[in-house]
């Protein structure tokens, strides 16, 4: 048994917290979609991967830095997912939850195999000027990119939170999640809210993919891991709770890095999955209770 090295442990915990906050960006939209559409979006992970590929090729062909590419990735993610909801998911909604779920599963299969076909199965990663830099705080060394990603994720999550709590679209979104029939009778165009939410999620998840790809390499098949990580984060943070998702991301990051520290790096995802199953079983509504009016 090695004795525990306090500096190494602190490094791990802090790094994990930053990484978790960064990854939270890929999860924040999933929870909105679950609330508004009552849909577990199984193609979520593939949208995250798609964002990473878009940034990869923007950098490869036009030399656009991944961080500068974020707005472009958002727009493309939004534009790609809006018609998917409108023309593929909305029509099957009448067949029940199961049909929507299995349709996203089928879409995930399609996307993943198109990635393999067109982008090859090779493992890719994104590089920036900061990729190899670290920032020293006393004895603790943290990768600069974690800090930047964390800050970006926090900013975007705050913006989403403002959108949901302060705007007309946000009010419609909350009313539609709570009771779509009543929302429609009150005068809300619920189907428009649905595709708006799905497309917003598409943009957010794609940006999340860029941040993740700045820290880890990815392949066409990374989608299911990203989906489950995002799902663990939103369950941890409380469904429908935006800032809860961000905190949930930090918590998951810490738990995963502790798991990796004590059990070996391969167990990083495993720890998250086991926690997800336990959490789902004991508290389907999340650990951080959802506040009544966000």
């Amino acid at each position, binding site marked *: 048994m090695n004795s525990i090295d306090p500096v190494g442990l602190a490094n791990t915990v802090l790094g994990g917290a930053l990484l978790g906050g960064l990854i939270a960006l890929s999860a924040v939209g999933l929870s909105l979609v679950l609330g508004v559409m009552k849909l577990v979006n199984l193609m979520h992970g593939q949208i995250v991967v798609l964002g990473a590929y878009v940034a990869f090729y923007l950098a490869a062909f036009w030399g656009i830095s991944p961080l500068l590419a974020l707005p472009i990735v958002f727009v493309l993610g939004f534009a790609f997912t809006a018609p998917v909801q409108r023309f593929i998911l909305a029509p099957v909604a009448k067949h029940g939850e199961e*049909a929507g779920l299995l349709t996203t599963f089928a879409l995930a299969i399609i996307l993943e195999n198109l990635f393999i076909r067109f982008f090859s199965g090779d493992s890719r990663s994104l590089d920036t000027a900061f990729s190899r830099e670290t920032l020293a705080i006393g004895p603790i060394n943290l990768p600069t990119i974690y800090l930047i990603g964390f800050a970006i994720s926090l900013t975007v999550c705050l913006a989403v939170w403002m959108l949901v709590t302060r705007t007309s679209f946000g009010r419609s979104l909350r009313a539609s999640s709570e009771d779509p029939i009543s929302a429609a009778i009150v005068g809300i165009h619920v189907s428009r809210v649905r595709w708006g939410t799905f497309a917003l999620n598409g943009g957010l998840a794609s940006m999340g993919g860029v941040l993740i790809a700045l820290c880890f390499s990815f392949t066409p098949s990374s989608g299911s891991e990203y989906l489950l990580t995002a799902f663990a984060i939103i369950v941890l943070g409380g469904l429908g709770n935006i800032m809860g998702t961000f905190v949930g991301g930090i918590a998951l990051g810490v738990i995963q890095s502790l798991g990796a520290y004590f059990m070996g790096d391969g167990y990083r995802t495993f720890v998250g999955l086991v926690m997800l199953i336990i959490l789902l079983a004991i508290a*389907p509504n999340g650990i951080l209770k959802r506040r009544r009016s966000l």
Partner: protein
Amino acid sequence: MKNGISILLSRIATPTRVGPRDFIVVAVLAAVAFAVPYFAGTYQQEVGFRILQLGALAAAWNIAAGYTGLVSLGSAAFFGIGVYTMAIASNAGLPIALCVLLAAVMAGLFALIVSPALFRLRGLYFTVGTLALAEAMRIFVVNSPWFGGQAGIFLTARAPKAYDLYWIALLIAVFVVVCVLLLLRSRWSYRMQAVRDDEDVASQLGVRTYRTKLWAFGLSGALIAIVGSIQALNQGIVQPNGGFGMSWTIDIVSVAIIGGMGTKVGPWVGAVFIVLLGEFLIQFPEIHLAVVGVVLVLVIRFMPNGIWGTLTLALQKNRNFS
């Protein structure tokens, strides 16, 4: 759920009836299938193996998903358990038949262990829980020191010939079919379907829902593990990404849905469709899967009862009019 009724109405398949005729049909088809290696080449036997394998997997999945409403995306976990049990047990020198039995027992135990957590989840959350479970199993097997890591385990047993494999697969397929038919003849059939249609009402009518779900989920998993154990023999080597890979779940789900969930014949129709499509696109495996995805999207939207369910409904309507 307010519009539950309309949703269910759109998914009414033919009622489940099992009579002696079904067993005769199975016997005749099995006899015909048994003769295939005598006049077909190795390639045809391999295709036949694949159809029997996928059909048996989908029929087993259908017990939980189609009849009991437990739509699982965790089939790879059960399949992987079958694959690894065969590898470890046969390398330890146990006879093959015993290894197959052991695979089923291990899968049943696994279902028993995870059921307290999984059965608290309903609907979509159950599905996500099973998906997480299968991924967790894969990662665990990759990382733990006992299963040979990414490299996997070689089987010391001699690899069976193509026709042997085909016959074993046929035997198992017949076993799965007979299991399904017997189950559908038994009182469990009503219980499972009642739990699927309305769990609360089932309980109000005396059905012990937890037990019913556990039987269905466990039996479904055990049968999947049996098929998995044969796959280990077929490959000669077992690896986490092969045994516990998502691709098995994808195959099973697409075969069952395209053929028709909750129908006796659907899984076999689906298996023939998917395997023949795969042979047609053999040069482009990823295109094959993408096409399967597209077909899946179309079937869910336009034929929610799958190929077989839609066919039988159409036949019924014809009969009513004439």
